[in-house]
């Protein structure tokens, strides 16, 4: 919300202080000045409505008369800010008890005045978070809505944001929304998925490089850190970053300065950091797999997004929301909705969205329970045909015998579909089995499977693609 055309009143008997305040506010609208209670009350009678009122406590016609102006100022609908050099708790408490919205100690600096104006903007846009929840991030889960209220605080601070939650819960989407709320634009939002890029290229993507910095660097290139200047840098799957890169990133975050690869000149970048992870970063720190100092640097405001299975009341809302976005409108019978609510959604919201898109193309307008994929009806995993995990079946059992020996059926499968497809299926099943068993902890899974980061994510992306 941009501040302009405000109707303001400044009640301050010190000419220099009044001048300082009006100079700082001059671009925001009209203001009326008063040095006494009498003058201020006259302005209130003449104009009846103010957006912002600044009140000094001690005025030309008496000490603490500013306190008596708080209520009349509130009646004009104004956001009332008391200004005073008084440090006594009693006067501050009385001012708040009389209803003032904010108390600014004199002499104030530009930063504290900006904070007051930001809080005024927040008060004016109380409905913004409500609209955001209704329109942009669909949920009516009370616990999730409560945790999203932190977005009001995020607006007031420059602290980083850490989003956590299983894959497909909308961390990337939420990061974009937070950026739009903060900066009122989609521009200058730089996104980097640390797990999708090979480690040796990740550094150059992040920091940029000069021409000739390494073989293949035929031109210089700006990194995401620099491109995010004045905006947001979103680091997805931040836990997969190597230790060396974690160290470099920490320095860049702390100093807001860094050296592109092959450059001797530092560059500065002032960005808002938003990070995301599926993993328990605190646990990784305890296991010495993630730097503690970097963790404390990036944690700031934390938002945890629950898996869809833990907020089944949102399934129907999301079905409606995604159905409206498809070319063909579809509706679900009550039995179909019940099946969908009971399904455990391993792919979370992403899986639900893909399902709605698929159903809108393939099915008739009314979706019955029989139109749903078998795994949804049976509440099984889409790739494995295994039932939804329960606390007892959090598997510690070994894979089935077929994985190690080849049965007649498997040989027939190879003959029909080819060895490559067969091996890919084995990879999918094995990776998914260990990944779920480890509660989606990537590092633990990699350690057990003894495969590289990039191989793991290649297989995981293949599994996700099969959900379509």
């Amino acid at each position, binding site marked *: 919300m941009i501040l302009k055309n405000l109707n303001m009143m400044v009640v301050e008997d*010190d*000419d*220099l*202080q009044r*001048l*300082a305040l009006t*100079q*700082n506010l001059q671009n925001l609208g009209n203001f009326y000045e008063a040095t006494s209670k009498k003058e201020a009350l006259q302005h209130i009678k003449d104009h009846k409505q103010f957006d912002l009122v600044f009140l000094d406590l001690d005025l030309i016609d008496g000490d603490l008369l500013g306190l008596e102006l708080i209520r009349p100022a509130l009646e004009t609908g104004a956001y009332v800010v008391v200004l005073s*050099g*008084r440090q006594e708790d009693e006067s501050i408490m009385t001012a708040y008890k009389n209803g003032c919205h904010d108390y600014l100690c*004199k*002499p*104030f*600096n*530009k930063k504290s005045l900006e904070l007051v104006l930001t809080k005024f903007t927040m008060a004016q846009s109380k409905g913004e978070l409500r609209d955001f929840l209704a329109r942009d991030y669909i949920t009516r889960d009370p616990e999730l809505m409560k945790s999203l209220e932190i977005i009001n605080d995020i607006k007031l601070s420059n602290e980083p944001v850490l989003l956590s939650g299983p894959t497909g819960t909308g961390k990337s989407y939420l990061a974009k929304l937070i950026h739009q709320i903060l900066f009122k634009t989609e521009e200058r939002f730089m996104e980097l998925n640390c797990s999708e890029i090979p480690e040796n290229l990740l550094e150059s993507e992040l920091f940029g490089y000069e021409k000739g910095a390494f073989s293949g660097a035929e031109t210089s290139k700006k990194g995401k850190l620099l491109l995010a200047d004045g905006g947001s840098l979103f680091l997805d799957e931040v836990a997969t970053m190597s230790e060396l890169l974690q160290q470099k990133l920490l320095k860049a975050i702390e100093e807001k300065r860094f050296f592109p690869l092959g450059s001797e000149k530092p560059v500065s970048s002032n960005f808002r950091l938003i990070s995301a992870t599926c993993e328990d970063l605190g646990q990784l720190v305890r296991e010495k797999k993630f730097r503690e100092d970097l963790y404390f640097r990036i944690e700031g405001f934390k938002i945890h997004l629950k898996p869809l299975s833990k907020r089944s009341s949102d399934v129907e809302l999301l079905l409606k929301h995604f159905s409206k976005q498809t070319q063909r409108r579809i509706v679900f019978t009550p039995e179909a909705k019940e099946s969908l609510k009971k399904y455990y959604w391993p792919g979370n919201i992403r899986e639900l969205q893909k399902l709605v898109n698929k159903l809108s193309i393939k099915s008739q307008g009314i979706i019955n329970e029989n139109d749903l994929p078998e795994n949804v009806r049976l509440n099984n995993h889409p790739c494995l045909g295994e039932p939804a995990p329960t606390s007892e079946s959090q598997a510690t059992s070994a894979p089935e015998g077929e994985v190690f020996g080849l049965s007649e059926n498997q040989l027939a499968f190879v003959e029909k579909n080819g060895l490559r497809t067969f091996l890919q299926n084995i990879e999918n099943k094995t990776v998914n089995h260990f990944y779920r068993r480890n509660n989606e902890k990537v590092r633990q899974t990699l350690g057990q499977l003894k495969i590289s980061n990039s191989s793991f994510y290649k297989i995981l992306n293949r599994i996700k693609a099969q959900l379509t």
Partner: protein
Amino acid sequence: MMKDHSKLIHDMNSGLGSLGQAMELLVDKEMRSNDLVDKIAPLSLEKIQSLIQIWEQLRPKLD
């Protein structure tokens, strides 16, 4: 009329704060203008004179 000691201290602090605030405005490149200097200069002189008077009242109490 002689003000009491604490009121004088309060006025002194307040006056110094005002002067500091005014100087900050002049140092702020975005705010600085000839018009602003024309407004601040006489007000600052007045404030300094007022602070001198307050100091004259305070000094005997501190000696």
